[in-house]
């Protein structure tokens, strides 16, 4: 049982990934973990940890997004007058208010008839943002929606937390969404379960528990990780079991609605928590592991809602400018939220990675 959406005559016309220039190898941080080095190295292999991209202190979501959008404008890949909406999905907003999307609009000097919207979503943020973009495009007045998936959550992760720090990454992606002249059909399924909302959280820093000296105090958990209430905390086992239980039937549901078999899909671009989890999902769904790329954590880290477009940019690159693929996007995590989209992807105007 899922909430279902169908869209027609819409498409993704380009994906740009913006990654920080700063790259940190796994080995450089092993000494922070309360773990023998030999075991850390085994874990590195099993989970696909290798290196990750982290912003310099002071770099925020709007910096990455503005840099990416200006690149597209400067390269003639996007016209300013075509932008009707900025949909920013982030969990690292610059302020409680104003919305970060408004800040981005201001920095870019866009016209006042541009809709700016922040959405607080994480691992499923690309799916939620894409749904919002497709819904906006039902309106005649909307020409192109810029879906921005951007997070710099590394700042909220304890360097001494081996559950979360090795897989953390920062990134921004700009996905241009518009109408298609072709008769495309896009299917989507969505589920949310707020009863399990605290499986992934940052306990302090909001109105309920403001940050202060007490919330900044580092404490050791039962596994030897050190973190404070200001840091992201993840119940890794529960997240893993949630994904294994909920995602395969959701994909089965989606494929049935789409009238496709698992083998008809060229690529399964899923959220990128770690290699182990993705391999288990591919095996369970019954698709070859090479059809479900699992190489984003090892190369760049997990940048929450940005991981799916990062995976598209990294794995398809310029091939997606000439070819068209049947793809399945799926995001699962924070919320808890699990959602997926089946659609065509290809003949993109751009699909590349740049560095900030």
């Amino acid at each position, binding site marked *: 049982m899922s909430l279902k959406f169908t869209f027609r005559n819409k498409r993704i016309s380009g994906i740009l990934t913006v990654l920080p220039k700063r790259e940190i190898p796994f080995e450089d941080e092993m000494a922070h973990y309360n773990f023998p080095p030999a*075991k850390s190295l*085994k*874990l590195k*292999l*099993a*989970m696909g940890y290798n290196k990750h991209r982290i912003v310099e202190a002071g770099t925020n979501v709007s910096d990455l997004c503005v840099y990416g959008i200006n690149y597209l404008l400067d390269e003639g890949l996007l016209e300013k007058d075509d932008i009707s909406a900025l949909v920013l999905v982030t969990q690292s907003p610059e302020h409680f208010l104003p919305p970060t999307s408004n800040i981005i609009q201001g920095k870019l000097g866009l016209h006042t008839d541009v809709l700016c919207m922040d959405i607080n979503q994480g691992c499923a943020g690309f799916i939620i943002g894409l749904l919002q973009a497709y819904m906006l495009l039902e309106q005649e007045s909307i020409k192109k929606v810029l879906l921005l998936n951007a997070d710099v959550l590394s700042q909220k992760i304890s360097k001494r937390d*081996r559950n979360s720090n090795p897989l953390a990454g920062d990134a921004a992606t700009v996905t241009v969404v518009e109408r298609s002249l072709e008769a495309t059909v896009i299917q989507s399924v969505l589920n949310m379960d707020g009863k399990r909302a605290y499986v992934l959280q940052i306990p302090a820093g909001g109105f309920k528990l403001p940050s202060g000296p007490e919330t900044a105090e580092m404490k050791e958990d039962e*596994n030897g990780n050190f973190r404070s209430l200001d840091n992201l905390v993840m119940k*890794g*086992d529960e997240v*893993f*079991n949630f*994904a*294994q*239980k909920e995602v395969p039937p959701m994909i089965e549901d989606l494929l049935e609605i789409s009238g496709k078999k698992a083998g008809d899909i060229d690529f399964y671009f899923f959220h990128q928590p770690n290699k*182990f*989890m993705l*391999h*288990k*999902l591919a*095996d*369970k769904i019954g698709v070859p592991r090479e059809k479900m790329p699992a190489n984003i954590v090892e190369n760049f880290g997990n940048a929450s809602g940005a991981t799916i477009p990062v995976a598209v940019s990294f794995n398809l690159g310029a091939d997606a400018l000439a070819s068209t693929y049947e793809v399945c996007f799926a995001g699962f995590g924070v919320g808890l939220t699990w959602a997926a989209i089946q659609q065509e992807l290809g003949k993109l105007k751009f699909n590349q990675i740049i560095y900030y």
Partner: protein
Amino acid sequence: MRQSIIEILTELRPEFDFQQDVDFIEAGMLDSFDVVMLVTALDEKFGISIDGMDVLPENFSSIEQIENLLTKNGVK
């Protein structure tokens, strides 16, 4: 099968004796990351893919539990 399991466990955590009759999880001999590495090693050794739904600590609490899991996944 039993000998292979013990070899894999011993390579993973050489400081423990996995032939003793204790609950490996409760005794702190295996944590959740060990379970991930153990599953990866068992998958490779026996040419299987243990179902993600079975990657639960209780299925790795003893040699017998691990044997049952492997049997369920088609290992003879």
